[in-house]
């Protein structure tokens, strides 16, 4: 299970909407509870460094990746995953996502439809390199 605090949702939504129709991307930071529940408390928005069509692809530069690892160390957080948007597509990992996916990371996908409709789903790679959905829970009910 992954918990995304409300202000984080807001930041993710803003990035996905502002970057539309291109894909946005960035990092997720937080802590992992003993039961495996992940709590996302911060994100790092980075540029989509994909050369060419950014509406259907994203790429994060190694330099940004290293910044993210350092960011986690600086704040004593864990780097828990990657988020990116799927403009005009559902929040389901594509084959491109799967091939390039890293173990351990939560892959949060923000679907943005033409009308700015937002759906978020999170995915984790399993032992056989397939994605399994990771349930997103709200931080609190009210």
């Amino acid at each position, binding site marked *: 299970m992954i918990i995304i605090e409300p202000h984080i*949702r807001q930041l993710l939504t803003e990035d996905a909407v502002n970057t539309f129709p291109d*894909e946005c*991307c960035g990092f997720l930071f937080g802590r992992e509870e003993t039961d495996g529940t992940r709590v996302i408390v911060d994100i790092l928005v980075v540029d989509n460094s*994909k050369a060419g069509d950014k*509406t*259907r*692809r*994203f*790429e*994060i530069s*190694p*330099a940004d*990746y*290293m910044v993210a*690892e350092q960011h*986690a*160390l600086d704040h004593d957080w*864990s*780097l*828990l995953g*990657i988020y*990116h948007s*799927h*403009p*005009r*597509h*559902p*929040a*389901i*990992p*594509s*084959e*491109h*996502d799967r*091939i*390039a*996916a*890293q*173990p*351990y*990371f939560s*892959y949060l996908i923000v*679907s943005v*439809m*033409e*009308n*700015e*409709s*937002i*759906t*978020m*789903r999170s995915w984790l790679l399993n032992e056989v390199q397939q994605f399994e959905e990771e349930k*997103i829970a*709200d931080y609190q009910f009210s």
Partner: protein
Amino acid sequence: MATVIIPTPLRKFTNNTARLQVSAGTVHDTVQELTVNFPDLKKHLLDEGGNIRSYVNIFVGNDDIRDLQQGLTAVKEDTVISIVPAIAGGAPADSTASSGNGVRGSDINSAPASGNGARAAQPFTKEELARYNRHIIIPGFGMEAQQKLKAARVLVVGSGGLGSPVLLYLAAAGVGTIGIVDFDVVDDSNLQRQVLFGVDEIGKPKVEAARRRLEALNPYIQLNIYNTHLNSQNALDIIRDYDVIADGTDNFPTRYLVNDASVLLGKPNVYASIFQFEGQVSVFNYRGADGNPGPNYRDLYPTPPPPGLVPSCAEGGVLGVLPGIIGSLQALEVIKVITGVGETLSGRFYIFDALNFESKTFNIKRRQDNPINGDHPTITGLIDYEQFCGMRAIEESPLKEVTARELYDWQVNGEKIQLIDVREPHEYDIVNIGAELIPLATVAANADRIDTDKKVVVHCKMGGRSAKAIRELEEKFGFKNLYNLKGGILAYIDEVQPELTKY
């Protein structure tokens, strides 16, 4: 020793160690050393041919080894080597946008005869997106369901105890078009449970007060009001324009009317009712996945109870919070019918007992002998439901009357009264008794000319039209000070001023 920084995703293969010390040499040597010490790392760093995987970047200092000497790049004692996973991905290659997942997408159970068809989804404005954010972020509901709410047209029959929460929640939820039918005016005794209204609205038509309250709540929706008593003459025309009906009526004639009209037009009817401490909810005539309509009210109660057996809320009373609970459940079912999310109460009948906090859900089935859509239907159009139920949908109180002699006494005693004549101008020209002329057809429009704080005597020629005028003014504006002149101007002439012209 040189240092290798292990990226977070691979730390589970290095006993959660982020920084490892390795011997100096080349990058190739470093990778070899790592994979020997941590065998599970191997498949993530190297491909089957033993080469560094394309999605793994290795940096020496700030430089990618691809820009240096690749695997032969030197690693010195103070070198910091970073293993950097390539992070990439993207949407599926096909350019067709598919609809969002996770929402069971059944279209609104629309009537074959409705002719509404599928309405194009209107895009949301930024303000609407912000307003409905808490809906949109619910997994399994999301934008798709919100779009359906916006496109939906719901008719709420009755804006009283049940209608109040239903209207508030449907308006708040963003149901795009809401119709409200009610003939009543707000009474002080309504405020114990009808949370749409406040003391400022007492005496005003409920539909108008409701519209003001709902407009203040949600400016992004369309509200249509019908300040009328739903009856066999107007029901089909009003209901025809809507996708879903929410029945919050308090009497049997209107309940059977709403049920039959919904069945005849093929509309789902979300039903609720309350009495004292008990509430009921169901979804009638809902066309499920099999395309067949679900049970309706007549499958449950083919005929009404004998007149007088079941008292109305006005007679039996109702705990004020109960319509809040049951009306909220009704609003929930309306939203589920519209969005197709979840399982509706179609084919089930829910009962809540507030006293011992028990609820039960019964299964209900269609009956072959249902008179409106059984095997041999006998009802093919709307009937006279008041006669069918043996009672009137509106409980009429007797009109206050005044005789010509009493009126004359009030006049000579100097009592402050207003005299209104609802006849036509040409009649007034023939003979009048000094009353203000407001012809019957225009009384509602001129209600502001009628006093509310002193006795108002209304007359016509013989007393019929003035009675209608009083009924209309009482129903629409809540007048309580109107008196009908018995026998009209003719009686007054006979008894008080025989010298005037009779016609």
